[in-house]
């Protein structure tokens, strides 16, 4: 049995936990305000909100429910457009959309409204740019973005003075009053659900699929997943922390991109992390996509994989997915990949944790990504670079690149070659040449091989530019 709250209603369903929440909402609950545009998380028409208790705090975030398995709704508050309607009047977000003339055909509109409602419920500062960032996953093909921007501006203005989001939106009558009681209702649901979920998996006979956020699995294997036996790891309390032990940062496999963005450890270690994150998919996808999922998916252009490859991150693999038993092995991330979507890993093994050495004082790090569309797109080429210097000599360099070979690449030769060099124009040019000899890009929808090779050279140049100026 899967239990959660859908809008103002308690749900208990025996339907397959592998079906996507979108189908449950539309075809089982007949809530048709949530639209289907692409079923691959790329349009945002199916955006809904997910509320959950985090350290006794009720937090909401947006997701594209076409990629969210029903099982991941367990114990949460799922909010669709129907759940934020006032009986006979528009709420503040809806009014802002109306005032700005921000609807044309209207098909993307509920998704846009939900993203903005998610912004109202978030602890983000009420600034226009944050409101616009909230709709970064919503495609409007009437391309009425200017009016959506104007609506977002109005929403941000109306949120001035927001402290506790849930209290604010209910007392200001932005969202329906029932939101005020959700925290208590989720508490009541919580305990028995976790026990039940663990038991379900223990009962499964076949080897279960391991599902984190589902953002890739449900694009690649949508039909297969519906009736599959699934072990849900997204909400496992042992699997989504980000913490520090000495100079190491240890990341749970189910930590999402958004978790990284919000982590003080990550923010401190990578000054520009929020800029990098903005280049990675969209807000609702970042809210679901896990780091281990990005690694295991083995896409040659996985953004986080490229990010962590440059840091020479290590992964702990466990043959037993239940936490606490340390019988696994540890390998560098760069050793995980042996060919296109081929891993040095038994099917039984799972990533238990990820760790990397936090950047040394005085070191530099940069992440670059270029795609056809700057945001919400898959990279043509991405690259990350970590460098430690002593004086003007390179002590240690880690260079990674995606989209230039069958696997996400740690550019070993170039990285090793750089060690001991001084940074000059000639060294940069030689490094680019070495890197271009190390890669094997192919021509595809993301660009010709000539382009990818040129582009990688450019990205390497960009990595070095701030160092050259010193």
């Amino acid at each position, binding site marked *: 049995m899967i239990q959660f709250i859908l809008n103002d209603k308690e749900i208990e369903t025996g339907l397959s936990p592998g079906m996507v929440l979108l189908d449950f909402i539309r075809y089982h609950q007949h809530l048709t305000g949530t639209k289907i545009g692409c079923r691959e998380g*790329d*349009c945002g028409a199916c955006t809904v909100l997910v509320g959950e208790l985090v350290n006794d705090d009720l937090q909401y975030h947006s997701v594209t429910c076409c990629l969210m398995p029903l099982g991941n709704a367990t114990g949460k508050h799922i909010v669709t457009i129907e759940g934020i309607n006032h009986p006979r009047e528009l709420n503040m977000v809806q009014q802002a959309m109306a005032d700005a003339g921000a609807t044309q055909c209207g098909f993307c509109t509920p998704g846009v409204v939900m993203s903005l409602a998610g912004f109202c419920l978030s602890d983000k500062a009420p600034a226009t740019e944050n409101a616009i960032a909230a709709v970064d996953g919503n495609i409007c093909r009437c391309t009425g973005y200017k009016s959506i921007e104007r609506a977002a501006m109005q929403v941000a203005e109306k949120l001035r003075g927001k402290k506790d989001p849930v209290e604010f939106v209910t007392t200001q009558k932005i969202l329906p009053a029932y939101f005020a009681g959700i925290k208590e209702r989720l508490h009541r649901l919580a305990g028995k659900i976790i026990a039940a979920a663990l038991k379900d998996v223990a009962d499964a006979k076949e080897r279960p699929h391991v599902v984190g956020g589902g953002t890739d699995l449900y694009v690649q294997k949508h039909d297969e997943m519906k009736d599959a036996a699934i072990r849900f790891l997204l909400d496992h309390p042992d699997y989504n922390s980000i913490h520090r032990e000495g100079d190491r940062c240890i990341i749970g496999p189910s930590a999402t991109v958004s978790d990284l963005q919000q982590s003080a450890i990550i923010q401190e270690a990578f000054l520009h992390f929020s800029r990098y994150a903005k280049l990675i998919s969209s807000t609702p996808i970042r809210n679901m996509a896990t780091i281990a999922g990005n690694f295991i998916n083995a896409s040659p252009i996985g953004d986080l994989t490229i990010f962590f490859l440059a840091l020479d991150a290590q992964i702990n693999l466990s043959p037993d997915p239940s936490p606490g038993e340390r019988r696994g092995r540890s390998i560098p991330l760069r050793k995980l990949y042996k060919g296109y979507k081929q891993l040095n890993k038994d099917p039984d093994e799972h990533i238990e944790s990820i760790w990397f050495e936090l950047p040394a004082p005085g070191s530099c790090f940069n992440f670059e990504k270029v795609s056809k569309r700057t945001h919400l797109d898959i990279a043509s080429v991405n690259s990350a670079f970590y460098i430690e210097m002593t004086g003007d000599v390179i002590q240690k360099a880690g260079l990674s690149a995606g989209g230039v070979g069958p696997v996400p690449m740690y550019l070993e030769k170039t990285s090793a070659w750089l060690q001991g060099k001084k940074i000059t124009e000639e060294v940069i040019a030689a490094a680019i040449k070495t890197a271009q000899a190390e890669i094997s890009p192919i021509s595809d929808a993301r660009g010709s091989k000539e382009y990818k090779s040129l582009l990688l050279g450019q990205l390497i140049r960009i990595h070095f530019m701030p160092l050259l100026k010193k």
Partner: protein
Amino acid sequence: MCLKPFADMRTFSYSPSGGGGNIDTYTHVRGESVYLDDIPVIAGTLYAAVFDSPVAHGKIISLDAYEAMRTPGVVRIFMAADIPGQNQIGGIVPDEELLAVSHVHFCGMPLALVVAETDEIARAAAKKINATIEPLPIITDPREAKEKGELIVPPRTFQIGDTTSTWAQCEYVFEGQTETNGQEHLYIETQGAYAVPQENGVIRIYSSTQGPTAAQRTAARVLGLPMNQIEVDTTRLGGGFGGKEDQATTWAVLCALATYHLNRPVKYSLHRMEDMRMTGKRHPYSSDYKIGLSKDLKILAYEATFYQNAGAAADLSPAVMERTLFHCTNSYFIPNVKATAYSCRTHLPPNTAFRGFGGPQGMFVIEAAIARAADALGIPASDIQQKNLLHTGDEFPYGQKAESEANECWNRMEELYQPEKMQQDIDAFNAANQWHKKGMAMMPICFGISFTKTLMNQARSLVHVYTDGSVGISTGAVEMGQGVNTKILQVAATVFSIDPARIKINTTNTYRIANTSPSAASATADLNGKATEIACHEILNRLKRVAADELKVNTEAITIKDECVYCKGAKTEWDWKKLVMATYIKRISLSELAHYTPPGIHFDPLKEKGHPFAYHTYGSAIITVTIDCLRGIYEFDSVKVVHDFGKSMNTMIDVGQCEGGIVQGIGWMTMEEIIYDKEGRLRSNALSTYKVPDIYSVPKEILIHPLETEKESLAVLQSKAVGEPPLMYGIGAYFALRNAIKAFNPSANISFDTPMTPEKVLMNLYPQPLKGG
């Protein structure tokens, strides 16, 4: 009781809570608007899925559906042999089978229709169908098709003056070639239909279509039924952009075919990848141009040859090709023109209407020719553009005389935005920045309003006034985000002078309004709005006569304003509701079906001359862009426009159409890249590989300044058509990028090949040395 006077209808805003310019806004923002897949399904509904050709060209050897048929839950699988009438869906040319019989002509061509108890079963079963197809040679390139004589229709040539004898008089002559890629419609609501059996063999089809009559006519033809047996009903579309003008028909007819045989409701709502794979797009064009200028930069002669990539069947291609010819000189007067167009048959899905309908493809070529000339002469393209703008009385190559606003728009644009100063700022920026370069381009537009097929310029409106004073209106217009329902409602509210809240615009239904033209060509509001205006006036006159009788005065003495009846300017005791009831009691009709055709339009395709357009819409834009010369990526800084709205009847809707059209046009010119491989398979087949603008790719600033005129009596309430024209401002994006690239790499040899993706930008910034092999 009379209402308080309400706001002027031109600044009309409506919603139960008082905001928004579109009557649909209230339900849109609440998720309560009903699209095809939201219609509550009737018990017993079955679900369909198409099995489509995996190869682009071949002979069907066998089609094995045995395994598929054995799938539990599969009800039946339909093939060509199950079609009771004609297996033919071609609208202009009867050259397209609904289900392939002996040959397949494109990847995605429907071969069979699986009908099952659920959507999932239907799709899973379709995957089990096995087609053995003997491959035949595949053509994807339009020039190759033309060489091999694969033409959809004979070529057409528009001609004015004599180019041949003019070249010698030209100081400068330039020639070249251009390529414009296609564009995926990507309406966020995919194609779909839902057929429901009625008594006596009637089939009602709910269809997400811009052309309900096309769906009705084709369903009748395929099923061998009279048209009155087919009812097509459309509430609204989640985007159309031309993609649902002709190509919504296939799904409507397939569902109807299954319903015809099974007498059960059958629904098919396409998955995104099915939609992208099986439907046509904006036509790619390959074109040649030759332009000749005088010493003072007057364009004396222009020749163009267009090779339209029509895909595997005619669809709307001949009409699209025709509009390319109509717009081949854009907003310019050129005394000697010869333009020839070939509609070339290739093995791609039949390409179809897309906002602009061939016009943008024609306009790109003349803009490229001008840019090429400007490059060679070392002058800004705007010098040539400005000198050649149309004046009133100038003749288009097709014989119509211009009523031009081109210079007015351009001059206003210069006054308002000071492009010279903008260019100076850009030059200063470029001098000061090594790794970022800006570029700017101007883009004047001129777009003809009317269906170029004269007979399609007709519309009907059925207006009922009910005895409680409420009003119901049905027309042939389909609402797809362009705001046509709001505009029609405004027309009625204005003529009757009543509260807009009394008026309801009904679904578009072929039982209420017959023989409709599709909602297309930017003309929907004009045609259906004018018909509504006539119907409302007819009813209003009857109401006035009743009031005059009751008040014992002449009809001329009666006016109705803000729901109050005035007699010789003085308010009376009579109001709208009372007058409506009195009219009913007198047994006078409160309903009217009005018919409208715009006067004065004609075209002779033998001479290729005439007066095909009711009027033209003009405008001028300045587009600026900044390129990141390290990464090859770019951001548009601004689009500054003066647009000829006539007298806009709904500023919010019209500005929305402008802003949206501009961004869609920029998308076509920049990131939207359709990729077919040599086998005719679509590689950009999902939203992950075909990118349309997101909120971060829109220009930072879009300024739309209205050129307000009240000249155009053929526009509804003098408010000119606005659906398509603004898209063509987006063409300027390509030329702005080109100029920015040249600021970094003055020797760049940039081919006229759209879209200008970040890949092409980077490759032009850093040209690669040619390598052997």
